């Protein structure tokens, strides 16, 4: 892999606690000395956060489709009625 991809892998190992104690201390020392590395770590942290957000947004869309199907399923008419009545009182 090219250098920049190796750096991404290294940051991932750091953020996922996959570095041993010695390597972790060295990495943290490098962060103290390098503003660019600190920025890259934060950017990557944010990237994981966005990946998680994307996963959940995708699942929500899928669950809404499944929910609509189940909610209007004739064989579930009784339970659907009970659910609707829950909000009428």
């Amino acid at each position, binding site marked *: 892999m090219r250098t920049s991809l190796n750096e991404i892998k290294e940051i991932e190992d750091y953020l996922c606690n996959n570095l041993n104690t010695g390597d972790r201390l060295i990495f943290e020392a490098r962060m103290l000395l390098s503003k660019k590395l600190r920025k890259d770590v934060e950017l990557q942290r944010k990237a*994981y*956060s966005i990946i*998680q957000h*994307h*996963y959940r*947004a995708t699942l929500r869309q899928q*669950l809404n489709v499944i*929910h609509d199907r189940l909610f209007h399923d004739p064989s579930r008419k009784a339970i659907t009625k009970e659910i*609707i009545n829950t909000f009428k009182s």
Partner: protein
Amino acid sequence: METLIKNKTESIASFYEARYDQFFIQVARLVSKRGGTLEDAKDLFHDALILYHEKLTQPGFELQSSEEAYIMGIVKNLWSHQIKHDLRSETLVGAPDLMLEESNQIDEPRLYKLVLSAGKKCLDLLSSFYMQHTGLKDIASALGFSSEHSAAVQKYKCLEKIRETIKQNSLHHEDFFE
């Protein structure tokens, strides 16, 4: 990649259906009692199942209570949180031991939309790897790569692309780089 996502979609569908009849009515009753709507109940139920499903797919996770107690516990936490925040506008909170710390949540839906438009395929790949724990072997097979190494390289290229998109769109936020 589509096959990979389809298989995973089917697994979440059967996971959801298996719990719908048993738990949705309970969530509806709880939300109704606390003044919420049917739509609130649906959203909370979905978010709770998403969090629960994430926990179940995490290596080493063991359920310490009943499934019912766990799911309803998440629902109650999410509801308490929703009173103070708009739940749909931010990352989920409420379940213990989330992969990401609260401080890492996305505070900008705009940024997500930009990253999505710049690289949905990459987001799908990375989501499959990090969130669904799909192995590099399966990803390589779905993407037509000859080896796991090629899939790993693609994974890091995608991370680089997303990182770069975030960087380009965060430049005006001075505090981001402090």
